[in-house]
């Protein structure tokens, strides 16, 4: 189902991250990250928890400002845009949050219709029609529209989050750990939905995940981020950039340890760190 055309990487990048650093207080989260995502590509960003994957995703949409470096979306430097222009650009993004981030006070129907009500001047009946169409696309019945997010299961909430992200027909989909916390069957349903979204809407996608099944099934390119705290001062933070097949033949032990899910010496290291702190 994947369409990993070899020419994709030669196209103009839709997203370009150039030598980006993000620091919170004294803690460096992203260090000198450079990354380009061409139009139409599905990129999976993998890496262990706390390595800065979500921060990178939030920086791409302008929710986190980089400490230094540039983020360009379709040639626009997000940091230089006025509030109004940034709003206009953000309509071109669809963001699926880790825990769906549905508005508790609104019904499912109001949640999905929210971006339309903010930006489009569609009639009430047209909005209803679009909401039902998007919900049907993610496999949810019309009866959920009047429910509140708290009444739905985790998988259903994720699908509502996907329907909401798709309602404005975005050009770039950002998924933050879309399968985390779901059972294997529901995880695969979400994987299938991401694949269908790509085909039906011809979107560029960036998926942050540590689920290797998702990365292999959905992505045509994978990059791996390594935590800054575990790097030497002159080491790059992106330790892998290639296709899913190349990931299997990668010689870097750090990549293989993650891909195969091996703890190695981590537990001993952690215990050592804690006992040093206690002393």
């Amino acid at each position: 189902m994947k369409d990993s055309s070899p020419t994709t990487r030669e196209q103009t990048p839709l997203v370009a991250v150039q030598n980006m650093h993000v620091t919170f207080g004294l803690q460096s989260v992203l260090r000198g990250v450079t990354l380009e995502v061409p139009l139409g590509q599905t990129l999976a960003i993998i890496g262990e928890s706390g390595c800065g994957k979500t921060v990178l995703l939030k920086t791409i949409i302008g929710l986190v400002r980089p400490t230094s470096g540039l983020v360009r979306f379709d040639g626009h430097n997000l940091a230089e845009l006025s509030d109004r222009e940034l709003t206009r650009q953000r309509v071109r993004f669809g963001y699926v949050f880790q825990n769906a981030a549905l508005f508790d006070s609104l019904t499912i129907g109001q949640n999905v219709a929210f971006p339309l009500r903010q930006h489009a001047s569609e009639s009430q009946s047209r909005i209803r029609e679009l909401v039902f169409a998007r919900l049907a696309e993610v496999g949810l019945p019309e009866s959920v529209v009047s429910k509140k997010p708290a009444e739905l299961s985790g998988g259903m909430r994720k699908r509502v989050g996907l329907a909401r992200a798709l309602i404005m027909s975005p050009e770039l989909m950002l998924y933050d750990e879309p399968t985390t916390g779901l059972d294997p069957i529901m995880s695969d349903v979400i994987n299938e939905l991401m694949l269908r979204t790509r085909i039906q809407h011809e979107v560029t996608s960036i998926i942050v995940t540590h689920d290797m099944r998702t990365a292999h099934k959905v992505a045509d390119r994978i990059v791996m981020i390594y935590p800054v705290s575990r790097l030497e001062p002159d080491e790059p933070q992106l330790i892998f950039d290639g296709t899913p097949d190349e990931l299997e033949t990668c010689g870097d032990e750090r990549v293989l340890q993650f891909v195969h899910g091996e703890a190695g010496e981590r537990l001993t290291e952690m215990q050592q760190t804690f006992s040093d702190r206690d002393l």
Partner: protein
Amino acid sequence: MAAIAHDLLTDWGTVVINGIVAVGDLGIFCMRTISWLFTRLPRRETLLPNFYQVGVMSLPVVALTGTFIGMVLAVQSYQQFRALGLQTQLGAVINMSLVRELGPVLAATMLAGRVGSSMAAELGTMRVTEQIDALSSMGANPIHYLVVPRFLACLFLIPTLTIMADFMGVVGGYFFAVEILGIDKHHYWHNSEQFVGVFDLLSGIFKSFFFGAAIAVISCYRGFHCLPGAEGVGRAATAAFVYSFVMILMIDLFLTVMINSVYETLWPEGVSLI
């Protein structure tokens, strides 16, 4: 010794710098709220639930607070004024204290607890669960969508609730002084009318606009800057009340001094209860 002094200096320096940063941050937050207020007003469906929450839902607690303030004032003043043979002046004292000071300040304090803490907890939860990020990601400005409606609700409804607290305080004070303590009804109202003027009533309501604005800005700011987890939300709610309360008292002092100087300019002879 030098090391201890160095540590102390570093700690105090950090506290001072953090304080300056927080005040600056709050100032920017306030300016952004005001700027959105004049750029585009929120939609009716966003405004109405907030007006309902702040106004309608606070009515019982504010009415109860006002009634009890009036009654307590009657009890406290009665002993002293009776000793001086001035118990008929009780109406003036109760009603003057109520409309100028206690009604606005205690109603605002009650609302900082009821409305402010709830706003901080709600927005804090939205921050923690990434709902505020979701708003931004969909091209909606969180200040415009979340803060401006709450600011408007507090700005207009806290003065309205103060009028309610004043009214209920007057009723409560009258009930206790006349019906329970047995003060002459005619003298009670006559003295009130003689000493409590429109200026006194308006000065209290004028202050409540500032109290409302302070409660909204501080509570929303604490919610927006909530730390992660249940503990973070709890702290945001507590801090919203504590900082709002301190700010209410500071604004009250500043405005009372200002209003008194205006009063002295307008009526240099003043009024005396005796």
